[in-house]
């Protein structure tokens, strides 16, 4: 009986490993293929449409600019990247902590929930012009704007996750007379981790768009600012180049959350 179980267990494991390998390869290959297709279509469209260079650039020229003028891009890339990184990490931490508090202390949860929902829907970008007026043109505005726009979605998703832990699991912790702290870290948090990561992924998108919009509207450094500068000098290829670098950064943070999730969450619910 035991041998039969072992055989089927082994077969299951081998089949799963094969599927995982195929899945992993196509996860990397297909997105690249998708982007390549997009660029080809774009290139053809510009060539066939015979658009003037100041209106829209061909991908081939854009990529050339991205490679040749790299020294121009690099400090701006670093600037935007680090701004988003700081803002996003802070937003995730604040978001998870708030979600945890709101889930564990019912009164806090009911009081704050409408405000968290409000913050999710509020376009922080509208506050940015005023923030620049008070705090001056500088990095602080950008990072604060990122945090404001990004933390609410993490809070919302995390607290939903924490509040939807199966009751029986909490009962197990209660039957072992676990403290609130033990219950949270050993039961609620691992149960809700998928929700936390979903929140983080969404906030990565918010963080990128907010950072760039804030830079466009008032900064002198950063990829958003570079876009405006390139526009002024009618260097459309550099404009699009900056846009592509922004997109790469955005996708990077999104994929980073995915990768972190894959590394940390090795189990199946």
């Amino acid at each position, binding site marked *: 009986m035991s041998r039969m179980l072992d055989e089927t267990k082994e077969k299951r494991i081998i089949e799963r490993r094969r599927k995982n390998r195929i899945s992993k390869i196509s996860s990397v290959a297909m997105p690249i293929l998708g982007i390549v297709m997009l660029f080809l279509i774009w290139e053809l469209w510009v060539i066939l449409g015979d658009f003037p260079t100041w209106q829209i650039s061909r991908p081939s020229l854009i990529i050339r600019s991205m490679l040749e003028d790299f020294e121009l891009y690099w400090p701006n890339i670093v600037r935007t990247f680090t701004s988003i990184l700081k803002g996003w990490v802070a937003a995730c931490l604040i978001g998870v902590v708030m979600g945890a508090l709101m889930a564990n202390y019912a009164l806090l949860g*009911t009081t704050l929930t409408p405000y968290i929902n409000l913050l999710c*829907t509020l376009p922080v970008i509208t506050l940015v012009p*005023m923030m620049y007026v008070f705090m001056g043109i500088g990095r602080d505005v950008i990072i604060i704007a990122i945090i404001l726009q990004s933390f609410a979605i993490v809070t919302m998703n995390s607290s939903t996750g924490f509040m939807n832990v199966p009751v029986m699991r909490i009962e197990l912790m209660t039957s072992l007379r676990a403290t609130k702290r033990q219950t949270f870290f050993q039961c609620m948090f691992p149960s809700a981790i998928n929700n936390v990561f979903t929140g983080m992924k969404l906030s990565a998108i918010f963080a990128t768009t907010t950072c760039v919009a804030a830079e466009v509207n008032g900064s002198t450094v950063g990829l958003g600012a570079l876009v405006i500068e390139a526009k002024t000098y009618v260097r459309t290829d550099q404009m699009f180049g900056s846009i592509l670098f922004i997109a790469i950064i955005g996708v990077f943070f999104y994929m980073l959350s995915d990768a972190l999730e894959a590394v940390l969450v090795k189990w199946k619910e």
Partner: protein
Amino acid sequence: MKGNKKWLNIVSPVILLIVILVCWELYVAVSGIDARILPAPHVILSKLGERFMRDLSGDFLYTIQVILIGYCISIPSGILLAALCSQSKLVTKAITPVLILMVVIPMLTLVPILQLWYGYVMKVRIIVVICQAVPIICLNTLRGFTKVETAKRELFRSMGAGRFKTFVKLIFPNALPQVFVGLKLGCIFSTIAAMSADLAASNEGLGSRISVYSGMLMTDMAYGTIIVVALIGIVLFMIVAYIEKKVVIWIK
């Protein structure tokens, strides 16, 4: 009694709001801070009430149209796109980064280009809204369409249902919760996109107004307009949430 609890759910956020407003008023009164930096709430609200019909109503209608038209076009487009892509696992994987790319690109940098093509029309901003909302709706809907339990799929296959029937009767209803997540996020992105477009195009629309007021240090009106925008966003969100509650009745 549970009845009491429900009452508390509504009352405590309101109490918090009152506390915040009172503290704000007191702070402004006591610290004597310049009204141009931080105006008192009553000033904001009274100015808003005064000047709404005269100054803001035009922009208000403009922005609402942009958001609603853009959002309403995005919903079927996003869902349809996701429906088509979900038919192939490979296409799903290929298109996900493309969609993320689309959301993340600062649409406001394409606003000048679009304006060169179409002129200074509402269409430009609607396109911006669509460009931000469609990918997000599509991404979430796609996730809903592709995560169907094998047991259910097998059931439909065993009954001889074709692709289309399986989609309509199984995949779509199963994905509805995820679809609504996408719709809620879509409405958030629509509002944000409309504001970003306004800031870049600066002519009509509430976003442009905020920019103008900020620049002229008419902070009270700026705050007032932001409140109007926030209200639009949250009302739209609540409408979608309400529809969700009515439609997705099997989720608690």
